[in-house]
């Protein structure tokens, strides 16, 4: 049974997806020693919003089928079907489980071309902004100043972590990411350069995973169709469904924040005349 590699790809893709639905308005990263760096103009935000919508649709689409998979898996387990070869009832449950599994693959397959287009479009627009704004219009000195900011305010401890952390529902993550960027209206908590870089790198990964997933889905579907003939259910299938469910609906604990402890503004620090 060679379903695992393809479903690993699916899982990794789902992990990467939340980062593409970051925000819906335009923001500019502050640059204390140079021109304002505009990393999220309207065009980029439109791409992100569209991609986020596609990701949300995929979540909604998969929610029902994964719920059914969960119930069927529970029934299979409670019926003590594991290892019960030749039991007609268990064979029937296994076939139903396999059919639902195929349905999940098909649901993802249906959404992937649209997702691929949206991800690639967002990746390309972010790539252009990063190159022009941070690569060509920014010096190493001003980049460092932009990252550090004039004064970093205390960061909320429940700030969503970047780079595909699991533990919350996808749509909730979108909301958190929106709030993360929205806080930049009142002042920088984390440089938008970091956010942009993070999204861009995840887009690259997502783009590669979509391509790999599309290739794998056809093969995985064929393998499962063959399994339907023999009424097999594999531990790998159960594990993968569990993993996808965890990613989509956040049934595990959240990851640690990536930022270091916040800089506490209190007494005025000494500033040397030698300081950069």
């Amino acid at each position, binding site marked *: 049974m060679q379903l695992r590699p393809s479903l690993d790809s699916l899982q990794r893709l789902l992990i990467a997806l939340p980062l593409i639905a970051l925000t819906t308005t335009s923001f500019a990263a502050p640059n204390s020693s140079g021109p304002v760096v505009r990393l999220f103009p309207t065009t980029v935000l439109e791409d992100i919003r569209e991609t986020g919508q596609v990701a949300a649709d995929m979540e909604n689409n998969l929610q029902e089928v994964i719920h059914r998979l969960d119930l069927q898996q529970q029934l299979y387990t409670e019926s003590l079907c594991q290892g019960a070869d030749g039991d007609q009832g268990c064979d029937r449950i296994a076939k139903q489980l396999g059919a639902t599994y195929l349905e999940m693959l098909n649901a993802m397959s249906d959404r992937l071309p649209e997702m691929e287009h949206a991800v690639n479009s967002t990746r390309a627009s972010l790539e252009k902004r990063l190159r022009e704004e941070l690569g060509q219009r920014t010096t190493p000195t001003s980049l460092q100043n932009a*990252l550090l900011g004039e004064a970093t305010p205390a960061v909320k401890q429940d700030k969503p972590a970047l780079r595909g952390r699991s533990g919350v529902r996808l749509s909730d993550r979108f909301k958190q990411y929106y709030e993360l960027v929205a806080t930049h209206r009142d002042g920088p908590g984390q440089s938008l350069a970091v956010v942009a870089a993070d999204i861009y790198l995840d887009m690259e990964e997502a783009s590669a995973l979509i391509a790999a997933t599309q290739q794998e889905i056809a093969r995985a579907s064929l393998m499962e169709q063959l399994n339907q003939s023999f009424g097999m259910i594999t531990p790998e299938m159960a594990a993968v469904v569990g993993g996808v469910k965890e990613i989509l609906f956040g049934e595990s604990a959240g990851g640690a924040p990536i930022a270091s402890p916040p800089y506490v503004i209190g007494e005025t620090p000494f500033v040397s005349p030698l300081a950069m």
Partner: protein
Amino acid sequence: MIRSFAAALTIALALSACTTTENTSYCAAPLTGNLESAIRGAESRLADGCTYHFDSYFQSLLSTAENNPDPANPMLFSDFLMGAQDRGIISQRQAQSLYNRYFNVKFVSLQGDYNTCSQTCPVRDQVMSDMRAELHDKEMGLLRASADPQSFYRADNLLKETELVLEATCRACDAGGR
């Protein structure tokens, strides 16, 4: 006549040797006391001609500060470096570099006036390596000598963010042919 000249020369050479030995031991003697008195000692010796020992004095002062961590220590180092600069022992650039390397959140290793695509991306690995080495010095200056963990964590975070942003930016530069 020749005999008296030779005797005078011998005495002069002997005295010179004594002076050199005395100077060497004076310059190389360890700086003692707390940071302020050690700085006074270093300044006194530098004024007496021990300028070649500046680097060792600076390292010795860092060790003294490490044993007496205090948030006021960066100010003492700043004054010491500016005094050395005023007396022409080190250049302004050296003074700035030393101070910022040890006592500033910002990285001396990430400086430049040309754009990131052309200046930093071609040597990104080297820049990151230099920044990691500099973070080690900031650990000494900010964390151990100044008891300022907040600033050190900011420097640590800045390094991580720089790594991420440079990776993305340099990929974008490469994709566009710089």
